[in-house]
Structure formats: structure tokens, C-alpha cells
């Protein structure tokens, strides 16, 4: 028995020695070299990015980047995947001329990023931290991790400052805030709304502590929250008890989904055939709306938020005069 323990220790020792070797090698890797007058930018992970000149070619791994660049009057130098880029409110047909970064959402192809000679890459928190090392110190990676709509506004300001577009950023934020304020003031009586995705049995919802949820909360009754208190951490979506949904009985449902074909029953009809969903006011009054996943779920920037705000106001309060 004694010997067995000894060997176990030996194995551990091998492991530890091997590992400790590995830690010494990367000490100098993260060091940024900038002595001249520089632009500094601190991302949501607390990483400091230093630029010698204003970054011009920006690559977007996540939609909030595309969205925010559009607000600043810029065009991304490369985008990953099929996001909001080709939505009419953003770059529409122009999107085809923007180079794409291959791979998948969770693993964007690093070689493509190098090829585009980017000055700055913007990725999403919880997903893209992993490629920081691959990009090295030549291509700075900014991780954005918005948790409420205020973070999205903050991001516009931060990016505007870094890209020398402060005026545009200021203006975009101001017009969003004014528009938001106007819309909030138009609301006389808040209806209860719910944003969800998935099917009737396996579904997720946006809570109050998500980007879109935090905004909708201002123009509608949006009672969906989790008691964990870690709203800052989770991405704001959760699986909720049907009983809670029944209790709050939303007047209107926004569903981020794929479109069913013309000859198949619509989402409302499908939900109506479910004995529990069918009891909800929203389903009974046929107030179930399919919304664009790209904008509602992935957008996260103030451009998308403006669209969501307008679409939501229109659907929530169709009788309001402007």
C-alpha cells in the first residue's frame, strides 16, 4: 500500500513538473510595446489594448460589432458568419462585398483573420477569449460582453473614442436615448411581454438582466427574472417554469424563431394547440409574433435595439398615436 502511494505521488510529481515547465515560457507574450502617443482601450475582460494609431480595419466576430460600426458610419473589414450584416437595416446587399471570416461561431478561422490584415478584432465574451493567444499582440482582440442595454450604449462610446469617431458616437447615443425616452413617454399603460426562443416544451427566455430584456422592461411589464442574483454573469437566458409564465400571463409573445412554411400551421396556431400555452392571453388574442433572431437575439448593439424598440412598440401598442 505504501508503495502504491509512492507511485501515485511520483505520477503527480511528473505532472506538476511538466506543467510548471510550461508556465515559464509565455511570460513575455502578453507584453504590449507602445511608447509613442497611443490610444488605450480596456475591454470588458479588463485587458488593455494599446494602439499607435487609430485602428481602421476592424473585424467583427459578433453582431454587436457590426451594429456599432454601422452607428459610427463605418463598415467592418471582415465579418464572421451569417449575422445581421445582410439585414436591410444594416449593410443589405452591400454585405456580399464584405469579406467573411470562415470557421464557425465558436471557432472563427484564425488564418482568415490574419489574411484580412485587421487592426482590431471584436469578439463576444464567453466565446472568443480563446483566440486571444492565437492573435498574439499583432492583432488586438477586444472582448465585449454587454449585460444590459446601458452596456451597449457604453460600447458605442468606447468604440467611438478608440476609432476617433467621438462625434458620431455621441450623436448615435444621443439620438438613441432621445428616441428611447420618447417611446417610454408614449407608453400609458404597460402591457406584459415575454421574449422567448425554442419550442413549446424546450424553450428559453430573455430575463430582465439580458440586453434586450433590460430595455423592454422600460416600455412594458417584463417580470421575468431569476433569483440567483448573478444576473451579471449569466447571458440572461434561462429555462423558466411554465407555472411562472402562466402566473404572469403575458399579453404578448415575441418568439425568436425560424419561419414555418406557408402551408404549415403558424407559431400561434401551434402554441394554441398546447393546453397551457393556449391559455395565455397572448395566444388567445393571437398576439404571438415571430421576430428576426439575428436582430433580437444576436444584435445587442444600439442599432438593433432601436429596431427592436420600434418593432416592439408597434406590436405592443398598435393603437398609440405618435
Amino acid at each position, binding site marked *: 500500500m505504501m508503495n502504491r502511494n509512492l507511485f501515485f505521488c511520483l505520477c503527480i510529481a511528473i505532472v506538476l513538473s511538466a506543467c510548471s515547465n510550461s508556465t515559464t515560457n509565455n511570460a513575455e507574450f502578453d507584453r504590449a510595446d507602445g511608447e509613442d502617443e497611443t490610444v488605450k482601450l480596456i475591454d470588458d475582460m479588463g485587458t488593455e489594448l494599446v494602439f499607435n494609431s487609430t485602428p481602421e480595419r476592424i473585424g467583427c466576430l459578433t453582431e454587436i460589432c457590426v451594429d456599432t460600426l454601422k452607428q459610427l458610419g463605418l463598415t467592418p473589414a471582415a465579418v464572421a458568419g451569417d449575422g445581421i450584416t445582410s439585414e436591410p437595416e444594416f449593410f443589405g446587399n452591400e454585405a456580399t462585398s464584405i469579406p467573411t471570416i470562415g470557421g464557425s461561431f465558436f471557432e472563427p478561422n484564425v488564418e482568415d483573420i490574419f489574411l484580412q490584415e485587421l487592426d482590431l478584432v471584436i469578439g463576444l465574451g464567453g466565446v472568443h477569449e480563446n483566440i486571444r493567444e492565437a492573435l498574439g499582440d499583432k492583432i488586438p482582440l477586444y472582448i465585449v460582453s454587454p449585460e444590459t442595454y446601458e452596456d451597449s450604449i457604453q460600447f458605442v462610446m468606447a468604440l467611438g473614442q478608440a476609432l476617433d469617431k467621438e462625434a458620431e458616437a455621441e450623436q448615435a447615443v444621443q439620438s438613441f436615448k432621445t428616441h428611447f425616452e420618447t417611446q417610454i413617454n408614449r407608453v400609458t399603460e404597460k402591457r406584459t411581454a415575454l421574449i422567448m426562443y425554442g419550442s413549446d416544451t424546450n424553450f428559453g427566455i430573455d430575463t430582465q438582466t439580458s440586453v434586450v430584456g433590460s430595455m423592454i422592461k422600460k416600455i412594458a411589464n417584463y417580470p421575468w427574472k431569476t433569483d440567483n442574483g448573478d444576473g451579471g454573469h449569466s447571458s440572461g437566458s434561462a429555462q423558466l417554469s411554465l407555472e411562472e409564465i402562466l402566473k404572469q400571463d403575458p399579453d404578448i409573445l415575441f418568439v425568436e424563431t425560424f419561419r414555418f412554411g406557408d402551408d404549415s400551421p403558424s407559431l400561434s396556431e*401551434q402554441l394554441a394547440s*398546447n393546453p397551457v400555452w393556449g391559455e395565455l392571453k397572448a395566444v388567445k388574442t393571437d398576439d404571438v409574433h415571430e421576430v428576426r433572431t439575428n436582430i433580437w437575439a444576436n444584435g445587442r448593439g444600439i442599432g438593433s435595439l432601436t429596431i427592436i424598440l420600434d418593432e416592439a412598440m408597434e406590436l405592443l401598442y398598435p393603437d398609440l398615436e405618435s
Partner: protein
Amino acid sequence: MVNKRIYKSIYVGTPLFLLIIYIFILSLQLGEPRLDLVTLGQVLTNQFELEIHRISVWEIRMPRSIMAIMAGVMLALAGHVLQETFQNDLATPELISVTAGSSFVMAFITVFGLPVLFIVQPFLALTGGLIAGGFVIGSAKNSFKRGSIILLGTAVSAFLNALIIIIIALGKENQIGLLFFYLAGSLSARNWSHVFNLLPWFIIFVPLALGSARSLNVLRLGDEAAVGRGASVIKMKILLLVISAGLTAVVVANCGPIGFISLITPHLTKRLLRTTNSALGLPITALLGGFLLLTGDLLMRTLLYPIELPVGLLTTIIGGSLFLTLLYRRSVRT
């Protein structure tokens, strides 16, 4: 001696049955709104006016609890039949690949956003599970020696799981979140239509499984002895395998892969009854399965309210650890 054992299984079975009824009633009471027994009685006899109470009890809690009992019974029986068939107490129906087949189909639908009607999804999942299970059973004709079919199933499952991971790699956050909920195995938001999906399979396969006790007892004597009694061992095993796959497939298609119920219940039964006689063991296993899943689901939906976590996580982590302990303690004894 035989009589004593029958009494024993009645001693064990009756309290278990009462316990299930107790928890079932509890599961109708708990949640939001919480009901006392009198109110529950009124709701059940349709004397209570509030619509929300009626829906909560009749449309949410009752189908879900019934679903939990049915799924628990079916999974437990599937496990018992399989373990006895191969005389291998590590065998679980997950290993005939039914689970992986269904999961693969659901992963495909979820991640690629296929416009498949909600109501059709369980049937597609069922088809996937049956194809995978059928492949394993079909290709295992010659490999009934010492449970190697289970390894075959492991290999097919490993392949399908690899495909699922590839699909995961292509998804986006929300889709992956949904997929993980399904892959964990959950009873949340299930309603009567799911109960009715389960019902025909329950009616056909549960009696078949309970009725297979005699065959299982013959197999326990060993293949040669079984042949000596004029039984066609291969045919018998294939039939038992089909029963087990049928019980599992429909549960997985409707609830996702709820782990370890089928592995742990036969072990518990044997410890409770101290007999390997399947005629006595099978009913107890069934009751235990129903009890465990019902209790587990009740815990998962009330503890973190309004958040729900998939019950499959609980059964796998607790059932799995319990199983490892049992295995360890048995090995120490021998």
C-alpha cells in the same frame, strides 16, 4: 421459501406504492400557486373557480407527474430486462444507442433551425432512436456472447455522439443552450400530448416486460441450461432486446436522455429483496423507477423556482455516484 419471498416483495412493494401516491399528491400541491389539500380537492372535483388553479393542476402538474411515473417505470424496466438478459449489471439501454440516435435527430433540428412542427419533433426523435437501436440489435446477431453487444452499442453511441459534437460546433449560443437542455433529459413543460405519445408504448411494452420474468429466470440459469429447456436463446434475447429498446426509445424521444434510472433501479431492487427472481423483482423495479423519477422531478422544479433544471442532471449525478458506491462496496465484499 418461495412464499416468504412473495411476502417480502409485498412488504416492499406496498409502501413503495403508497409513497408514490403520496408524492404524486404532493407534486400536484407544490409549485406556484401552492395549494393546500382542501383546495386541491376542490380543484380536482372542479369546484374551484380560479382558472389558473385548474390549469396548473390539470394541465401542468398532473400530466407532468404522470409522465414522470410512466417514464420512470419504463426506463427502470428496460434496465432490468437488459441487465438480466445479458447477465451484466452494467448494462443500460443507453448503450443500445437508442438515446444517441434520438439526441442526434434533436441536435440536427435545434442547431440548424429546421422548421419542424413542435408536435412532430418527438416522432422524428423516436425514428432516429429506433433506427440506431435497430442497427445495433440487427448487427449483433452473432455477438450475444458475454454482452459484447453492449460494446457494439457503445461504439455506435460513440459515433453518434461525435456527430452531435460536430453539430454543436456549428451552432450559436441560444441553440446550444436549448440543445444542452434537451441532452440533459428533462420533463419540464410536458403536457397531455406527451403522455399520449407515451401511452401506447407503455400499454404494449410494460406488460411485455413484466411478462418476461420467466424467460429472464431461464436465461439466468445460463445459456446451456436454457437451451436444455428447449428455449431458443438467440430469439429470446432478441425479443428481450426489442422490448428494452421500445421502452427506452419513446421515453428518450419525449423527455431526452434521462440517465441512470435504468441502471440503478435493478440494483436497488436486488438489495431490497435479496433475490434475483425476476418475477418478484420486475414489479418492484418498476415502482422504484416511477418513485425515483417523480421525486427527482419534483425537487428540480421546486427548489430553484422559477428556474428549472433538467431532472436528467440530478438522476445522472446522484444515480451515477450511488451506482459507483454500490459497485465499490460489492467489490470490497467479494
